[in-house]
């Protein structure tokens, strides 16, 4: 083996792999281990008692956990779909604009610069039942004379969180879909029109397949970062009132830091991690498929 040199790509990727191993993989292995123990921060010795799958059995039979899980999946599904539709609409509105497109695009990126925690505060302020913009506007317009408890009522709070989430992430979709619309060659659309397609048919069979990969890029990027909703919820309601807006992530954080039950929290965290991975792999696959299709057709 004298003179054997490791292949160049391996050497180039080594630093990335080392950092990720040190900061993500090894801690995750540790947390996988601790999810099989009754570990509490206050009792360090409990790290060395193995209890098998008891933590997992416990959370999987826990109605509170499943409620949070279901709510998280519901939030993600609704948010991603609405973001996708609104993003598509916004991109098409901006693409049609004849003047000031640069300015419009800049404004469109505005929410992307907001840190999720800022988005949380901002909407907590806007939806505040007493001094918030929404209630003030509704009352001034005479639509209602009482303070609507936006962040206190369970389903209203869920709606408010959804609004915040959608506001902050629609622009990711809009920007990427707009990039797709601008990159699209114009001849096929003209050809479709000449052939007598209705606008809807043109959109459905010509434009849509072309911008699909761009939509999937946006989906993949978003699903890499779905847990940013944690910051928003943490600030807006912190899972409350009385756990009516509890998401998987706030539940993990409460179990770990407020109750100090690390083992149990780690077991929950693993479910959250699996959920994120599932979302990402799904969209990444779709993205790869859409890419090959577009490469074959165009």
């Amino acid at each position, binding site marked *: 083996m004298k003179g054997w040199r490791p292949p160049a790509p391996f050497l180039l990727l080594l630093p990335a792999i080392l*950092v990720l191993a*040190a900061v993500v993989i090894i801690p995750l292995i540790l947390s996988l281990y601790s999810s099989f123990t009754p570990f509490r921060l206050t009792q360090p010795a409990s790290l060395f008692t193995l209890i098998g799958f008891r933590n997992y059995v416990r959370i999987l039979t826990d109605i509170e956990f499943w409620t949070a899980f279901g709510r998280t999946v519901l939030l993600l599904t609704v948010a991603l779909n609405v973001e996708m539709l609104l993003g598509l609409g916004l991109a098409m509105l901006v693409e049609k604009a004849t003047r000031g497109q640069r300015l419009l695009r800049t404004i469109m990126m*505005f929410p*992307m610069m907001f840190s999720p925690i800022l988005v949380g505060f901002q909407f907590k302020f806007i939806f505040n039942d007493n001094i918030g913009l929404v209630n003030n506007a509704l009352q001034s317009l005479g639509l209602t004379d009482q303070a609507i408890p936006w962040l206190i009522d369970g389903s209203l709070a869920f709606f408010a969180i959804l609004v915040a989430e959608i506001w902050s992430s629609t622009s990711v979709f809009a920007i990427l879909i707009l990039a797709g619309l601008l990159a699209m060659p114009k001849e096929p659309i003209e050809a479709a029109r000449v052939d007598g397609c209705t606008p809807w048919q043109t959109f459905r069979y010509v434009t849509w397949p072309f911008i699909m990969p761009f939509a999937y890029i946006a989906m993949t990027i978003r699903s890499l970062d779905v847990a940013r909703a*944690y910051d928003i919820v943490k600030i807006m309601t912190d899972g409350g009132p009385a756990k009516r807006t509890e998401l998987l992530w706030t539940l993990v954080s409460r179990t770990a830091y407020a109750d100090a039950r690390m083992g149990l929290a780690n077991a929950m*965290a693993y479910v959250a991690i699996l959920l994120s991975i599932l979302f990402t792999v799904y969209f990444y696959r779709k993205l790869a498929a859409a890419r090959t299709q577009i490469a074959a057709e165009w």
Partner: protein
Amino acid sequence: MNENAKARINGILLSTAHKIGLFLAMTVICLPGLWIVLASFRPTVEIMAKPPVWIPQDLSFDAYIAMFSGVGQGGIPIIEYFRNSLIISVTSTAIALAIGMAGGYAFARFRFKAKSSIFLGLMLTRTVPGIALSLPLFFVYSKLGIIDTHFGLITAYVALNVPFTIWLIDGFFRQVPKDLAEAAQIDGCTRWQAFWQVEFPLAGPGIASAGIFAFLTSWNEFALASQLTRSVNSKTLPVGLLDYTSEFTIDWRGMCALAVIMIIPALVLTFIVQKHLVSGLTSGAVKG
């Protein structure tokens, strides 16, 4: 009414509807942010007023003055927070860029076994929710004694930023034709020289925008920072925002002012890179 007039009216109606739709959409996007900026200039009485005061009567910089006037006078250690945020974001961005450039170059220029699975694997490390990662990191960091240090947070943010940086930089290197570097090598450059003198300058703007994206991620991160920082030694601005909340009340005006301070650097940087950011993310969408 003849066909022509009908078509013209239709056209006018459509373009008006388009303008109204555009205007409404932009209003919804801008309004929440502008409301925060406005609130930061208004006195607390006016924010709290019932019935609401719609037209601002009394605008001032009081909130900003109070914020900088130090702890105890309604201020928070904003200078320290700002310094921490800046040190942590800049350092972690620089390291993530160096690592990401090596990795992105490997993906863009070499063929190797299991390439796409390795790529997906790297991306998947990014999907681990911050709060889920914070549990073991908190434990490891407290064992190592690096909780509440710059070093701890920088390391975490490097790992957070590397996957996405690799994705972006891979895209930018793909846009640089392979032949250029090969031509340089035929002319007598080493591969190393060819990289720095040909490919790097061409991919430069893209790499810069990948850096700014990484900077923004670190600048805005909250889930990890809230657990791994304790005091003015390492608290960053997003965590500092919580200083304005107490058990039952929130100092809305002060918080809005801090929000404005936080958003300005992000705003400026995003404007600079917006064009490259989009092209980096979408490159390869069509080419495969």
